[in-house]
């Protein structure tokens, strides 16, 4: 029983990180119909910058903040480049190119050794949990994911921006017909996404090693989560992340040889019954 509880906890704490990674990805797709292939690159960039700042200053919090802000700024530049190109497909291809550029730049600056960001002091002592000492940091990540998720929910449901975003996800051309400057909204979405993804990179990089190649691993996870939950749906990302996290956790513990198969199998079953994903809407 304890084992099941622990694996369940492993699953949802992992899901927390997956959700943070996937939420920005789905947001960009939702309003812009662009599959942001540089999403994974945003993640490792955030992680690398946080790594350097943490190493220089020893202060984890400032590392996370600098990492997130830098990636937000990068995302702003990416957005400017993307806006020069017309059409969702060329834009997607452009983001792939940018992903490779960022990846190579990271390799040039930080080299190819896998890294982790130094851990903050406040989570250094594991807590006793279900007959085990459980890393405080994983609970912290879960908490952070809840805050991010809650913040996003509030933003989407209760603010003006949220209404515009939801409207843009529904019917983009109509927003212009109502006089809304959707381009500016896109820019904002990119910056927000950059911030959240940079933050997930910095936080995730504290307990999951990253290096060259991690960018596309992260992109794959984001895609699986988002496709399962429904492209463009924040709630879908949360649900997708939970399923991926829990399936992955139990799979790895009990049938580890087929863990990936199990995960992809779940995805295929979901898509067989709901091609648009669990909470996605039909196009």
């Amino acid at each position, binding site marked *: 029983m304890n084992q099941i509880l622990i694996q369940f906890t492993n699953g949802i704490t992992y899901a927390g990180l997956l959700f943070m990674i996937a939420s920005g990805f789905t947001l960009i797709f939702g309003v812009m119909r662009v599959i942001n292939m540089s999403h994974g690159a945003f993640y490792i960039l955030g992680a690398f910058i946080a790594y350097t700042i943490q190493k220089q200053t020893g202060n984890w919090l400032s590392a996370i903040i600098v990492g997130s802000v830098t990636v937000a700024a990068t995302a702003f530049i990416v957005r400017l480049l993307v806006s020069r190109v017309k059409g969702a497909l060329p834009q997607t291809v452009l983001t792939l190119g940018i992903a490779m550029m960022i990846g190579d730049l990271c390799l040039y600056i930080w080299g190819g050794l896998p890294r982790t960001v130094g851990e903050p002091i406040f989570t250094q002592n594991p807590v006793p949990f279900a007959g085990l000492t459980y890393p405080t940091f994983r609970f912290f990540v879960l908490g952070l994911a809840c805050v991010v998720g809650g913040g996003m929910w509030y933003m989407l449901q209760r603010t003006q921006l949220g209404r515009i975003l939801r409207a843009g996800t529904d*019917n983009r051309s109509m927003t212009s017909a*109502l006089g*809304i400057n959707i381009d500016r909204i896109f820019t904002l979405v990119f910056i927000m996404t950059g911030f959240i993804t940079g933050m997930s990179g910095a936080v995730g990089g504290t307990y999951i090693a990253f290096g060259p190649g991690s960018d596309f691993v992260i992109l794959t996870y984001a895609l699986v989560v988002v496709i399962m939950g429904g492209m463009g749906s924040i709630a879908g990302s949360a649900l997708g992340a939970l399923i991926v996290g829990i399936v992955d956790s139990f799979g790895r513990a009990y049938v580890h040889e087929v863990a990936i198969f199990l995960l992809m199998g779940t995805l295929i079953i979901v898509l067989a019954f709901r091609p648009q994903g669990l909470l996605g*809407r039909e196009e």
Partner: protein
Amino acid sequence: MDTLSLKNVSKRFGGLYAVRDVNLDVTHGERLGLIGPNGAGKTTLFNVITGDLRETEGKIFLFGQDVTRTAVRKRVAIGLRRTYQKSSLFDSLTVGENLYLAILGPQVGRGRSHYNLSRLAKKDKQRMDRAMEVAKTVNLEKMFETRSGLLSHGERRQLEFGLAIAIEPRLVMFDEPVSGLSPEERKMVVDMLKSLPKDITLLLIEHDMHVALSISERVVVLHEGCIIRVGTPKEISGDPEVQMVYLGGTVNG
């Protein structure tokens, strides 16, 4: 000053002219009907006027300004509104939120207000109140909190009407506002159209000749992208050439 003025406007797709050398002046407060058979270029002309499509040649003036190269949302900001032939709403938003955005958009576009991205401010309360008024105008006040995706076809048409007139419209263009409606719903929309204040200029594409002729003061007939006739509803309905190209002897019901 004409509300809308088109000078030699053409729109070509490849080698095919969808709109050809159209000259048209619409005066303030006028009710103008645009008719023609399928594929005559009516909706293309609408899209060129709104800026959704870029014209191949010609110039467009709105309220005296040259808007030929102006973005859609900026044309909206100076008072242009339209509805779409295919239903266009934000399906996952409530009726109230749909109307709210229709009110917010033009205000922001005119620089009267900025996006308030953090929270819903007092100003938004005013907009929501205004949204409620509009909802009453289009008989949807009971559905205010309903997601628009759940509305019936007729209710959707009412809401689209509401979006178009929600705030300070000067020129409203309706693209087949009664298509696919039941007779009762149709009557309701026609009444709404008729009851629009006189200082709103109205441009109407309508397949239903009875509706088109009953609302319009002047009718323009478009055929293969060209204007072939302009006249009063009476003149048009009696014109043999129009009957030939468009009516084909039977009135489309």
